[in-house]
């Protein structure tokens, strides 16, 4: 019974992303029996088997994949099978629909967490109270204590549900703010280009943006 087979079975069965630690505990005995010397050795064997496994499923002949989400490993259909799967599967999770203000507020919280409502308002330039309520209701954010300033405002942070819904390993996996800084700077410079070059500039824009999207996808 190979380690890879064991890991595959457990990831397949698990309802929420399963962590490296959980898997290590489950297979420890048999890995030690197979010659691992200590806990660290077990863990590194598990990790490398996981990498193998995820790599295999990544190939074009597979319609399902193993990905790191919300701190653990999870099996799912590949996004490109979406249309077909949707046509018959009943248990597709209802998609969350967020308004642009809600996404923006979520972005601020994701990058600045823990953050208070006044801090969020400052960045957005509008009152975010209502949007916060929506995000709390959808469990995409939760409270994180109070800030020790006058009024002791509630702090907010993103949740595991947020990571799951947005397919993130952890919040550090989000593109850095510097990337957006570059993007924004470019977008303003673009406007300053003399009229005759403008058309050309506009053409390069989407390509560039796609490149960024691609590099983001690769990180996953």
């Amino acid at each position, binding site marked *: 019974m190979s380690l890879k087979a064991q890991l595959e079975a457990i990831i397949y069965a698990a309802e929420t992303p399963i962590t490296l630690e959980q898997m290590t505990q489950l297979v420890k005995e048999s890995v030690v029996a197979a010659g691992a010397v200590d806990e660290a050795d077990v863990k590194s064997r598990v990790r490398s088997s996981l990498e193998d496994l995820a790599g295999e499923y990544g190939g074009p002949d597979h319609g399902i994949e193993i990905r790191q989400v919300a701190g653990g490993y999870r099996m799912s259909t590949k996004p490109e099978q979406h249309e077909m799967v949707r046509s018959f599967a009943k248990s597709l999770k209802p998609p969350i629909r967020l308004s642009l203000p809600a*996404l923006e507020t979520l972005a601020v919280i994701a990058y600045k967490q823990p953050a208070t409502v006044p801090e969020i308002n400052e960045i957005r330039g509008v009152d975010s109270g209502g949007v916060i309520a929506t995000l709390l209701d959808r469990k995409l954010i*939760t409270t994180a204590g109070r800030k020790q300033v006058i009024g002791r405002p509630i702090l907010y942070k993103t949740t595991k549900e947020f990571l799951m819904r947005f397919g993130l390993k952890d919040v550090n996996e989000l593109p850095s703010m510097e990337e957006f800084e570059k993007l924004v700077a470019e977008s303003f410079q673009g406007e300053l280009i003399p009229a005759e070059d403008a058309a050309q500039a506009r053409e390069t824009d989407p390509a560039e943006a796609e490149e960024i999207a691609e590099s983001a996808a690769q990180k996953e």
Partner: protein
Amino acid sequence: MGSRMEDRIITSEDNAPGPALPVLVANPRSAAAPVKESDRQSAKKEESDSPFAVSVSDVYEGPLDLLLDLIRKQDIDIYDIPIARITAQYLAYVEKIRELDVNVAADFIYMAAVLIHIKSKMLLPRDPSAKAEELEDPRTELVNRLLEHEKFKSAAQMLLQKQQIEDAVLTNPALKEFVDAEGAEPEMAADVIDLVKTFQQILERVRTRPVINVDEETVTVGQMIDYLRRRLALEDRPIRLKQLLMRVPSRQTLVCMFLALLEMVRLQAIQVRQDQMFGEIAVRKHTGFDAIMAEQAAVRDDWR
């Protein structure tokens, strides 16, 4: 502001027409796209001092978006904003939306004050003896805010894209076959918000429960004053009277709430304002709110 936000709800359908997978990218321009559609209309109006100026038909989520649109439409260098021109255009827009709806303009009016302040600072002659850091461009802070805001708009687009990809996958765990069906009671996971929400619902239930016992303890004006004090303490801006009354369950409570408001007006702890006949009534803290309320609470033991 809420009403305006909702006008621009983005759903996955809007962004990914048809079955194709979303290829939306983190492009700050796409965030501004809904606004740009109204360019044509605004061009038609031509009523203000600039052919690029925005019209009331343009909907902005907030003052920062309005400013950014003014800057983009006129190909202005964001690091060198002609503050007098932009302020004039900004004020013209705000004046127009104020005519339509007094309440919506709160955030916009604050920004107007900021712009005028910057403008006045720019007009002042520079003190040649001042140190370098005192010579900082008065626009810098605003520009940084605009750029920061724009960054997060890009981040929002990135999140939208990730979310759409994630919505497209399905997991089908087989674990339920291994878990014994134990605990017949329907169970739920809970967090802090569930806790507060649940408690709120219980209180709601208490309030709406049919009261048979007539001489049960009822709400007093004092209790309502205390409630309003705590409620208003959280508000920096005016709150709509309607909002305060939204959860009032009975006629008696309603009467107490009104008496409480009148008492607080009398004490000059709050201001109540109605801009037009039958218009929305706004309640706001007076400058001495905290002091007055604290002082009164100390002498009036029937407030508790």
